[in-house]
C-alpha cells in the first residue's frame, strides 16, 4: 500500500457499537478512541481519551493527531442525563465537532442518528424514506436534541461539502452489550406492553450496524440514509421472542401510560417520551442505503432475539 494509513477518530468509544467499529477498523487505519464516560481500554496502538466533545479540551485531540475522518457515534441517551446536559453534549458538542473538522481539514464525517427523529404518530405511512419530515420534536421535548443534531448535520452537509458528511438513521439496534432503550427493555424479564397496541417494528443486529458504518466510511458517499432490514415484526411478538413476560399497561387515555411510566421511574427502558413508539409504527425504508453501498444484514430477526432469550436462560 503506497498511501499512508488514514487516521480515524471514533466518538462514543465505550459503547458496544463503537467497540465493534473500532475492532473492524483496527490495523487498516490509525484509530483514535474518544468517550465522555471513561477512558476506554484499547489495544496498545489505539490512543484513547476521556473527553467531553463540547468542552475545550476536545480540540487537543485534533492538535495532537492529524485526523482524516470522524465516526461520530457517541451520544448521551435521554436516560443518562437531564435535558440541558444532553442538549449541550449532543447538539452543541456536535456543532463544535463539525467546526473542528473544518478547521483541521477532516475529509469525512459520519453521523450516527436514529429513526426516532421521524417521530411516532398514528398518521405515519410505512416505509418512510429519507425525505420524510422529522416530526419527533412534535411528539416530545425529550427528542428535540436528536432532531436538532440531525438538522445541524444536514446544514453542514450543504454548508461544508468538503466534510463529506454521511448521516445514518438506523432502526432499533440490538445485540450483546447494547445499552439503548430497546435493548435494555428486551433484556428485562418483565416488559411493559400497551393494552391493544402492538406496532410493527424493525430490528438490526449491532454487528450488522457496525458493518454498515464501516462500509459507509470506506465507500464515502455523502448523504442521508436509513439503515434497516426489510423484515418486520410487531412489538409484542418481539417481546415474546426475547423470552420476556408481558406486563399490560392501560393505554387509554393516552396520558395514563406516560403517568405510570413516570411514577414507576421506567426512564431507562420504557420512558414516558417514547410511549408513542410502542403505540404507532415508525417503519423506515432502508433501500437507498442497501443499493448505494451493496449492504444487506447478515443476521435475521431470530438471531437477534435468540441472544436475549439465551441471556435470560443463563442468568436464571
Amino acid at each position, binding site marked *: 500500500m503506497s498511501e499512508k494509513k488514514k487516521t480515524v477518530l471514533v466518538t462514543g468509544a465505550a459503547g458496544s457499537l463503537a467497540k465493534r467499529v473500532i475492532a473492524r477498523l483496527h490495523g487498516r487505519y490509525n484509530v483514535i478512541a474518544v468517550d465522555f464516560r471513561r477512558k476506554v481500554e484499547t489495544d496498545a496502538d489505539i490512543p484513547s481519551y476521556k473527553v467531553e466533545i463540547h468542552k475545550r479540551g476536545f480540540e487537543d485531540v485534533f492538535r495532537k493527531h492529524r485526523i482524516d475522518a470522524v465516526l461520530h457515534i457517541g451520544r448521551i441517551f435521554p436516560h443518562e442525563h437531564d435535558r440541558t446536559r444532553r442538549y449541550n453534549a449532543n447538539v452543541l458538542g456536535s456543532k463544535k465537532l463539525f467546526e473542528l473538522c473544518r478547521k483541521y481539514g477532516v475529509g469525512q464525517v459520519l453521523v450516527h442518528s436514529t429513526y426516532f427523529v421521524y417521530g411516532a404518530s*398514528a398518521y405515519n*405511512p*410505512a416505509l418512510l424514506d429519507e425525505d420524510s419530515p422529522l416530526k419527533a420534536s412534535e411528539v416530545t421535548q425529550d427528542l428535540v436534541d436528536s432532531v436538532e443534531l440531525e438538522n445541524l448535520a444536514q446544514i453542514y452537509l450543504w454548508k461544508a461539502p468538503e466534510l463529506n458528511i454521511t448521516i445514518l438513521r438506523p432502526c432499533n439496534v440490538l445485540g450483546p452489550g447494547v445499552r439503548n432503550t430497546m435493548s435494555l427493555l428486551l433484556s428485562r424479564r418483565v416488559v411493559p406492553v400497551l393494552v*391493544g*397496541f*402492538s406496532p410493527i417494528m424493525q430490528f438490526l443486529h449491532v454487528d450488522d450496524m457496525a458493518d454498515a458504518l464501516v462500509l459507509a466510511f470506506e465507500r464515502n458517499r455523502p448523504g442521508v440514509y436509513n439503515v434497516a432490514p*426489510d423484515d*418486520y415484526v410487531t412489538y409484542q411478538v418481539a417481546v415474546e421472542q426475547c423470552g420476556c413476560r408481558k406486563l399490560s399497561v392501560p393505554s387509554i387515555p393516552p396520558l395514563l401510560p406516560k403517568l405510570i411510566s413516570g411514577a414507576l421511574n421506567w426512564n431507562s427502558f420504557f420512558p414516558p417520551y417514547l410511549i408513542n413508539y410502542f403505540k404507532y409504527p415508525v*417503519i423506515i425504508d432502508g433501500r437507498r442505503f442497501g443499493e448505494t453501498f451493496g449492504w444487506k444484514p447478515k443476521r435475521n430477526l431470530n438471531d437477534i432475539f435468540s441472544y436475549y432469550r439465551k441471556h435470560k436462560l443463563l442468568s436464571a
Partner: protein
Amino acid sequence: MQVYDKLKALTRFASREALYRQVVTPEVEAQIARMPKPVGSFGYDAWGYNENAARLGLGVVKLLYEKYFRVTAHGVENIPTHGPVLVIANHSGQLPMDGVLIGGAMAMNPHGPRAPRSMVERFFPTVPWLGNVLTGIGAVIGDPLNCIKMLEQGEAIIVFPEGVRGSGKLYRHRYQLQRFGNGFMHMAMQTGATIVPVGVVGCEETMPSFANIAPLARLLGLPYVPFGPLLPLPAKVYLNFGEAMCFDRTARSEEEVTARVELVKDKIRALIERGLAERKSVF
C-alpha cells in the same frame, strides 16, 4: 338424549382451537398459501399485514360472504393475478362492509387469489385492538405515500374515491354516485397500476341511514353517526367487476385527469345498473 347431543356439540365449540378450525378451514389456508404475497420471517410485511391474522380474517369474511350477505360476484376473472391493481368501487352502507366483501371476492378468486389491501380512515390506528386487527388483515391508513409504495411492490388495493361522502350518504340518495377524488387516478398513472372498476349493489340496504346525527358525530370525532339499524342487515349483495382499465402518463392537466376519473365513474355506474337489474329482491 337429543339435548345431551346438542350440549355435546356445544362443548366442542368451547375449545378455541376447535372454533378456530371451524372458521379457518383447510380451504381458507390453501387460498392464503396461493396468494402471491411476500412476507418476512415472522409472516409480517412493512404495513403490518400478518399471515395468521389474514387466515382468521378470511375465515370470518368467508362466513359473512357466503352465509350472511350471500354474495354473487361476476367478472372476478378481470382482477389481474399479479402486479399492481387498484380496485375502484362505489361506497355505501355506513360501515365499510362493501370493502370487506370486495376483499373477500379478491381473496377467494378461483382465477388467482390476491391479498386485498384497503385504505382506512386515519383515526383507526388510535383505537386500541381495532387498529391492530385492521392492520393485521391488510388495512393501512389512507396516505398517498402508503398507496404508492404498495403499488410499487405490486399490491392490490381497494379504493373508494367517494370516501365518507359515499359511505355516509342517506338512504334516499342510494346508488347516486358522489364526487370522486382524483387521487387514485394520479397514483395509477404514476405507478402504471391497472384499474378494475366494481359496482356494488346491496350494501346500501345493509345499513340504511335516515339521518346523520351531526352533533353526536362532532362530539365523538367521527365523520358521521347514522340514524338507522345498529348492525348491518342481511341484504343480498351483488358485486360486478368490470374489465381492467389502464391509463398512461399522458394526462397534462388536472382537467384531463378528471375526465379520466369520469370514465371510471361511468363504468361503475353501468356496473351498478347491471347489478340492480339482476337483483330480484333486496333480502
